[in-house]
């Protein structure tokens, strides 16, 4: 097949199939001063795609706070880096792999994990943990069950094999994701604070290497595909295939190479493969690169420059070495049995130049490819009107309690995480099922705290407040374990940015997240935007997912999410934060009305921050036995989760002035449940008082085998802990099992 000529590309508008609009094509011609050939048009197409250029979101992303004394590397590199004290730092980033996972869920999820892994080790960090934030449609749908099972298997398939524990994340289910599941993978790594490696191609004449897997024809157009099409029409051939064994070897070899000091710059060949890695490395250095494509190791004969530049074959890295030290790399890669090829050199002419069969087949200014990519101020729809709604209380407290615990978003996720190796590396102090995961820094009495969160129901109802809550919830998860929150990463999963109402959601949600980041002192250090999450013309509910990272000094201070069974009976339960009985934005409301209703739940960021500081003080003084944050499903869910986990019942008291149903299921933010020994309760109350956080004894554990709810001295009702446990633990396995039985019948 002959490639179209520059004239054909123009006349037949071939550029449209490469992801360029008419206006963008004209801009390419202007920047080049001539018509682009096929490979050049393809390169512009992927680099100017939404996925690579952030052209619709860039003007809004600038509103995120990105600096602070704890930030060693903010956005713009392969990952963000924060200082965790004692000379150590943490690199982390989250990235979406939604579109590939909708088409080929196992490989889509696996390569999402592999890609984010490479982003972390290229910073010079040893990856130590994965977290995954997943969203699916309801489990009564056969395709959803397939997607869910395969995504989980794919995450495990890659993560377990590379030997990095998957320690946390969340899974939520809502009809909004039926045609467009979300797969957001986060990786966290540890490095010396002074050991950051950047993705820059500096030093004129320095050699450039492709290392790892050979380049094949897989995944061509993955980046443009991620940004433009409807998943219903997507093709599996654009999805890449992962090889975790090769990924593991590549990681070990690259970390060894980085430790040798011979590396000038290193970058993963992720979306848009060789194109984005070379252009971005040259852009960061303000220089150029010359690549001789004949030297790129390929999987099959006859690959064209276009295919080589746009391939998204996995497990490849682009490395710039210090001239004269190439042998160091050859020795290391040979030991790991990995291919390494010298494919070019660093130049100072600001061009990305491609040579093939002795001819220049592509020659483009790097600034035009990266820095001068189009930026759109897309039209933003009118303000979203938000109204508090009166929600029918047609579900009794008893029914709702069971229904909420059996809702797959709240229900026990053990079916998911026991398919992940959560303990490899032998540093996992608290794994999945905790409010936040804690992973020890080897050789130190210090652990990294990590959590992801992001409730789209709140953002759909009130994008600004929903954005605030997304950050607050993730950060609160850290504080609940006693850790000090440091920074966040995020994945902004939204619909079609060409619709003004979607841009309104995006803009408002970013404002809300920025509000929370400022007040909670957790700057954004890395992140990713995934737009065009839609199917059959319907956009998903706006879903910003936040990955928060913090540190706890002294692991003995940690607060688990429930007390151990042996010590639970006799403990007092305290509620930190305000009482609330509004059902706005609650899961209760959604269960009753079939969709999100009302405003997003209450949040006050100043109160939120005081709560986080109080939780750290409580952990620091070792006053409490356990802590669990109050979130989806309200106090009812939080109390049940704690009691189920420690397998001890108890009683709780509702305030007289509160409407009982609302009080049980309100999802008002800024609250946590704490289990404390009687002797320590006074100290707890004193600490709460000094932090200006309301604190009240909610009840106690152990006097009963059930859960007893009292109000005004009377027993309002009793619910069986066994029934709650069954609802919580069986929901997901049953949903999958009955489906399997149905299928075989």
């Amino acid at each position, binding site marked *: 097949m002959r490639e179209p000529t520059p004239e054909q590309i123009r006349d037949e508008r071939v550029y449209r199939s490469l992801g360029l609009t008419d206006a963008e094509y004209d801009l390419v011609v202007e920047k080049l001063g001539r018509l682009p050939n096929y490979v050049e048009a393809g390169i512009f197409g992927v680099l100017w795609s939404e996925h690579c250029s952030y052209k619709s979101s860039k003007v809004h992303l600038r509103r995120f706070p990105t600096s602070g004394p704890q930030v060693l590397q903010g956005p713009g590199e392969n990952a963000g880096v924060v200082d965790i004290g004692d000379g150590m730092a943490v690199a982390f980033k989250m990235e979406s792999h939604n579109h590939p996972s909708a088409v080929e869920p196992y490989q889509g999820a696996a390569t999402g994990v592999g890609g984010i892994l490479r982003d972390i080790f290229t910073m010079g960090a040893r990856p130590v943990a994965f977290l995954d934030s997943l969203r699916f449609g309801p489990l009564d749908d056969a395709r959803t069950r397939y997607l869910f099972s395969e995504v989980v*298997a794919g995450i*495990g*398939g890659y993560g377990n094999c590379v030997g990095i524990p998957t320690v946390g994340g969340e899974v939520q289910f809502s009809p909004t994701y039926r045609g467009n599941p979300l797969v957001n993978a986060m990786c966290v790594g540890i490095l010396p604070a002074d050991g950051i490696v950047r993705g820059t191609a500096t030093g004129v004449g320095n050699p450039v290497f492709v290392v790892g897997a050979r380049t094949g024809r897989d995944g061509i157009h993955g980046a443009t595909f991620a940004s433009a099409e409807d998943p219903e029409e997507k093709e599996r051939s654009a999805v890449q295939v992962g090889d975790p*064994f*090769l990924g593991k070897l590549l990681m070990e070899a690259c970390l060894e190479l980085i430790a040798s000091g011979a590396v000038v710059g290193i970058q993963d060949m992720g979306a848009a493969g060789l194109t984005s890695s070379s252009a971005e490395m040259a852009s960061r250095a303000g220089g150029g690169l010359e690549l001789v494509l004949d030297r790129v190791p390929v999987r099959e004969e006859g690959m064209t420059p276009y295919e080589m530049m746009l391939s998204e074959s996995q497990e490849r890295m682009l490395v710039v070495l210090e001239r004269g030290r190439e042998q160091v790399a050859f020795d290391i890669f040979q030991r790991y049995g990995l291919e390494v090829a010298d494919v070019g050199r660093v130049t100072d002419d600001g061009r990305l130049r491609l040579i093939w069969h002795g001819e220049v087949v592509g020659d483009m200014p790097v600034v035009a490819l990266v820095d001068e990519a189009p930026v759109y101020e897309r039209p933003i729809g009118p303000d979203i009107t938000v109204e508090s709604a009166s929600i029918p209380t047609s579900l009794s407290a008893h029914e709702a309690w069971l229904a909420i615990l059996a809702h797959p978003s709240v229900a026990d996720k053990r079916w998911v995480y026991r398919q992940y190796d959560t*303990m*490899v590396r032998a540093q*996992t102090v608290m794994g999945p099922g905790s409010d936040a995961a804690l992973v*020890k820094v080897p050789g130190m009495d210090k652990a990294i705290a990590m959590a992801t969160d992001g409730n789209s129901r709140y953002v759909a109802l009130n994008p600004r407040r929903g954005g605030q809550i997304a950050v607050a919830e993730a950060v609160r998860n850290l504080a609940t374990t006693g850790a000090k929150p440091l920074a966040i990463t995020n994945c902004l999963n939204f619909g079609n940015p060409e619709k003004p109402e979607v841009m309104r959601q995006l803009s408002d949600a970013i404002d809300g997240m920025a509000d929370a980041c400022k007040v909670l002192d957790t700057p954004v250090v890395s992140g990713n935007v995934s737009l065009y999450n839609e199917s059959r013309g319907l956009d998903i509910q706006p879903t910003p997912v936040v990955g928060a990272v913090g540190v706890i000094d002294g692991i003995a201070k940690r607060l688990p999410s429930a007390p151990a069974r042996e010590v639970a009976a006799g403990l007092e339960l305290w509620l930190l934060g305000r009482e609330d009985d509004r059902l706005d934005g609650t899961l209760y409301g959604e269960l009753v009305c079939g969709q999100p209703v009302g405003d997003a739940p209450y949040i006050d960021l100043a109160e939120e921050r005081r709560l986080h500081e109080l939780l750290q003080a409580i952990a620091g003084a070792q006053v409490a036995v356990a802590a669990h944050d109050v979130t989806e499903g309200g106090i009812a869910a939080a109390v049940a989760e704690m009691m189920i986990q420690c397998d001890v019942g108890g009683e709780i008291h509702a305030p007289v002035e509160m409407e009982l149903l609302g009080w049980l299921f309100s999802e008002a933010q800024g609250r946590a449940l704490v289990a404390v020994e009687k002797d320590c309760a006074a100290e707890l109350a004193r600490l709460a008082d000094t932090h200006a956080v309301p604190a009240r004894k909610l009840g106690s554990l152990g006097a009963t085998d059930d859960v007893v709810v009292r109000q005004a001295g009377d027993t309002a009702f009793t619910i069986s802990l066994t029934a709650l446990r069954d609802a919580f633990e069986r929901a997901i396995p049953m949903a999958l099992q009955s489906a399997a039985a149905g299928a075989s019948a």
Partner: protein
Amino acid sequence: MKWAVVVFPGSNCDEDAAQAVREATGDAVDLVWHDATDLSAYDAIILPGGFSYGDYLRSGAIARFSPAVEAVRREVAEGKLVLGICNGFQVLTESHLLPGALLRNNHLQFRCEMVELIVDNNTSPFTRAYQLGERIQIPIAHGEGRFHADPETVAGLRNEGRIAFRYADSPNGSVADIAGILGEGGNVLGLMPHPERAIFDWMGSVDGRRLFQSMHQYVEEGLAHARANA
């Protein structure tokens, strides 16, 4: 005494095993690359967990051809202690240093969780610090951990006291609930659970420590005996 942990391409519990040995015994540990041809300098050798050679073909099937496993074979014959954990157990069965095979879990999923084991032999060099019938907590993390052998082999293992650990509640469908078995000479142990993940309180169990301590004690006694006879 001196320990070796063999590192195959794709091993991922090698550092964990070394950490466990150091913590539980205070002994010196070397990580030894899979191309090592002589392991005679070591008193005990660990084949760690992971995905050696990507578990291509079958778990452990390619590792058995590595130079290090040939060296292990010689040290087994010399009576040295060899411990295969998870993928290491798979390598040992593939190498016929232990009988049977490890098949895909009966539920077809990878499974990682803390499990309860029953100590079925407390006289071996690996288990002497446990009580017979003691129930211990050790995590598992495997997709292919269902031990299988023909009935005669299983009967033989049972009669010779070579079943070291059984699952209290099998997580994978292993025949006779077998979690770990001993080689003919008693100096090879393969087990699917990960004792190196049960070393510190914060791991949720410290029951793995005694396995390494048993090995340490056994070897040190042997060395002391040899010195006395020298």
